[in-house]
């Protein structure tokens, strides 16, 4: 039951990071958490139960749920092989009393550890605003594989990534050709694959699978957190300056002032 310990530890991490997320996004609903579930254990369709109630039926490897708004609270999670009778038998993975704090945004991933045993890992998603024109990309190592280098266009951008860790970069929006190689080598494990990093999004890329179970694959999750440009420049010459009276009118007004002065002066002299 090694996996349970791992999950409890990781669940603690969600608790801590969830509080941080809550600070960062005070607008988030006060009493719910956003949780997505990714199935990244090869070859094993599963049913997922939460608090004894079936949450996901016949959940296939390589699939991801849409973000679920879950009431904050404590959850007992259990993952059964999909072909087992409902709710019976020994769970493949389980974790009791998982704290889901309000305001958190997390993805729970069922995947293989480096040694090929299944595990549940909750990852906290960065939902802070992405600067205009940029894209955030997070790569997560959830495959039964040793350390890898993640490369974009052949250049390592996340070197030495190990299971179950992640690396995050903020890059100009666009399409990158990404591949994954064994750390320090040019032995390609996955890809290359074109990844579209849309502006204003967090794109989370999971490397998952196992060499002896259909090979290594990529899974992608996208979270929108765009922001607006900081302003709109619009002119540099002052040709349509709105503050000043146009020159001819200014001249007319000054002429009126001069005439008034001259008239007043003459009036004063004739009186005196």
């Amino acid at each position, binding site marked *: 039951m090694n996996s349970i310990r791992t999950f409890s530890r990781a669940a603690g991490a969600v608790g801590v990071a969830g509080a941080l997320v809550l600070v960062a996004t005070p607008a988030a609903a006060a009493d719910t958490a956003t949780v997505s579930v990714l199935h990244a254990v090869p070859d094993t369709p599963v049913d997922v139960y939460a608090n004894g109630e079936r949450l*996901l039926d016949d959940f296939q490897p390589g699939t991801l749920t*849409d973000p679920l708004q879950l009431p904050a609270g404590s959850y007992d999670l259990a993952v059964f092989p999909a072909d087992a009778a409902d709710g019976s038998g020994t769970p493949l993975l389980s974790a009791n009393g998982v704290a889901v704090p309000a305001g958190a945004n997390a993805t729970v991933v069922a995947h293989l550890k480096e040694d090929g045993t299944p595990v549940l890992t909750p990852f906290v998603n960065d*939902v802070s605003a992405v600067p205009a024109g940029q894209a955030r990309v997070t790569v997560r190592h959830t495959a039964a594989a040793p350390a890898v280098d993640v490369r974009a266009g052949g250049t390592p951008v996340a070197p030495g990534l190990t299971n179950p860790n992640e690396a995050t970069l903020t890059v100009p929006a666009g399409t990158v050709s990404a591949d994954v190689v064994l750390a320090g080598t040019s032995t390609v494990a996955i890809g290359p694959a074109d990844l*579209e990093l849309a*502006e204003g999004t967090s794109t989370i890329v999971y490397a998952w699978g196992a060499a002896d179970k259909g090979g290594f694959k990529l899974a992608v999750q996208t979270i929108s957190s765009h922001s607006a440009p900081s*302003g709109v420049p619009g002119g540099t010459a002052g040709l349509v300056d709105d503050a000043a009276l146009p020159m001819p009118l200014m001249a007319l007004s000054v002429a009126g002032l001069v005439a008034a002065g001259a008239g*007043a002066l003459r009036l004063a002299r004739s009186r005196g």
Partner: protein
Amino acid sequence: MRPAAATAVLGVALAVGVPTAWGLTRPPASVGASVEQVIGTATAPSSSPTAPTSPAPAPSTSRAVPSSPTAPPSQAPSSQAPAPGAGQGSDTAEPAPLPAGGITVRDAAPQVIPAAAPAPARLTVPTLGVDAAVDAVGVEPDGQMTVPAEVERVGWYRFGPVPGVAGSAVIAGHVDSRTQGLGAMAPLREAAPGDEVLVTDAVGGTTRWRVVARELISKQVLPLDRIFSRDGPPRLTLITCGGPFLPEFGSYRDNVVVVAEPVP
């Protein structure tokens, strides 16, 4: 004496009257509804961080990715069979209730994002004599929206919506330049509610719009989140500079913001 008095009175009248008349006859800085009223919703963009950007329905028929032979077809809302004996609604009150209804599950393999609608290519406001080529633009290193340097061209913010889909499509242009004179967007200062605006896209399609608001807003308080909102009803937002020119900054104090609604 009499002529002298008359001169004095007339002079004062001229000195005061000319600027007053000028001020009174100028077009008002803002007409129509306020920009905040007509664009978008109260939703700040970052308050819905969980919305998936990939168009939600996306049935993953475009699984052109070779690396997922085992992935099943994405499951449409996999209806949640209720627990035995729980009736047929999953919204029966339970401790820590789970989401009602089905949970959408999709293939997580990298997707080919479907091509967006064609970008706008030409902006026309017949009543104002505006007719300008449109470039697709992004942001400058300092975070401001890019605006084409040629003042006769205008820029469409390509990270936001295309005109006609949900949210505010932004097209901006310089009002003037020291070397090029007045810009294509200069007449925007006289836009009035009801003016027709036409946007022609790269493949010849045209969307028709009607101005509902023109507002002069200080750049300091420009409601950027609202103006660049990516949800809410479709709006076309035209922006240039206006207000007093600040020589020490080489720029104008305000933005002229014109918002148009689609004409059905």
